[in-house]
């Protein structure tokens, strides 16, 4: 039995990610159980952990602190593969400039920045914020989660803030919106994605499939 815990700290709708994991799990030989929970014991007993996040970082961090989700994630990071999605990825960083500046968990070194109000592409055309829709991700390292995902595949994004880090060795994928930005990070048994794999059709499901089989090593 492959047990996947999706950490539920009350922020947004985890139906999509759970459904996508169940869908992918049905195609595997082993039985997959997906549990949406905030229970520290249940998460400690899982084989793999998903750390999602949606909405504003201030509200997310408030719930993370209130429910002691930080400690749960910290424990998970020490023992098993962890996939952080969207604001879940952002919450792992040191700080975010959203909501006037919010201190985050600091498990990965870097900060979360706003795209800006007057973005332009290479031709001078205006770019909207949030960055919403399908953008290409260039894979900057080989990683088990990229297996069978063609380089420069398009994933579904929806966000106004992005991760910036000096730790270039941690960056596993980049995308471009006016400038290059970090689309994914990889640090030992953590993989973090700014896009939504559960909404990215075939390539997203392939990435989730890879996560279900990942042993946390690179």
């Amino acid at each position, binding site marked *: 039995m492959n047990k996947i815990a999706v950490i539920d700290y009350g922020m947004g709708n985890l139906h999509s990610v759970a*459904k996508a994991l169940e869908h992918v799990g049905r195609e595997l030989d082993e039985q997959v159980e997906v549990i949406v929970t905030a229970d520290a014991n249940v998460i400690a007993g899982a084989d793999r952990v998903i750390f999602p996040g949606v909405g504003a970082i201030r509200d997310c961090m408030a719930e993370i602190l209130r429910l002691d989700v930080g400690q749960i994630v910290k424990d998970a990071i020490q023992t098993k593969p962890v996939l952080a999605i969207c604001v879940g990825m952002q919450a792992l960083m040191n700080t975010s400039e959203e909501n006037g500046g919010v201190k985050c968990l600091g498990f990965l070194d870097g900060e979360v920045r706003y795209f800006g109000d007057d973005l332009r592409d290479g031709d001078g055309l205006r770019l909207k914020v949030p960055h919403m*829709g399908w953008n290409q991700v260039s894979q900057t390292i080989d990683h088990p989660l990229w297996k069978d995902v063609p380089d420069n595949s398009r994933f579904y994004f929806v966000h106004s803030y992005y991760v910036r880090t000096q730790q270039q060795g941690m960056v596993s994928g980049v995308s471009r919106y006016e400038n290059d930005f970090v689309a994914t990070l990889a640090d030992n048994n953590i993989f973090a994605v700014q896009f939504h794999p559960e909404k990215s059709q075939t390539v997203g499901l392939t990435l989730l499939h890879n996560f279900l089989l990942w042993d946390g090593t690179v």
Partner: protein
Amino acid sequence: MALAKRIIPCLDCENGRVVKGVKFLDIRDAGDPVEVSKRYCDAGADEITFLDITASHEGRETTVFTVEAIAGQVFIPLTVGGGIRTLEDIRTMLNAGADKIGINTAAVVNPEFVREAAERFGSQCIVVAVDAKRVSINDESPKWEIFTHGGRKPTGIDAIEWVKRMVSFGAGEILLTSMDRDGTKSGFDLELNREVSRAVQVPLIASGGVGNLQHLVEGVLEGEADAVLAASIFHFQEYSIQEAKQYMAAKGIEVRL
């Protein structure tokens, strides 16, 4: 490497079936929404919009089951709109598997509802749907007014002012339908789309009037829309999603092929 312009097929549904009205009348049947959604997803649709036009309470329960069934099989973003009036309606649809919620009439009745919804569920899932009709005549500078109740009720509200206000209240995206063009197959109201797109920071979905693939191209290049929505040209298989994308790509538009 750039963000793709999106193609969004729209499923107008009544009592669990896909229908599409012409100028909101003359309804034809186009099939089972779960089958239709799956077909579009496999064909490369970038999102699905499910618009519920069911009036009855019993019918709306059917809608929740339908949304659940679609969400279990379609792994691209799903927007659900039509008859959303309360935070509880939004929660029900999100729990059923919707990713974004379209709010139309309820926003006009109570604009604060949009603010509350964005604060509670996040701007990323709040799409304000706007039905606009040109009210300027001849030589006057162009002007559009918001209509509600499926386009039957004028409000006296200026469309450009309205979208700015909705975005300031937390709308994460605007779905703009031209009432003059909807169902006519004569193309988007490009001037309306351009004015709205330039007035707001958030993405714009152009809707109403698509009759051929060139209309989709014009919506992006001249209407400055970030996404184009169409129903009948896809439902009745006049064009496939792939044909639409190939056509747009050939005209220099970035799409997900």
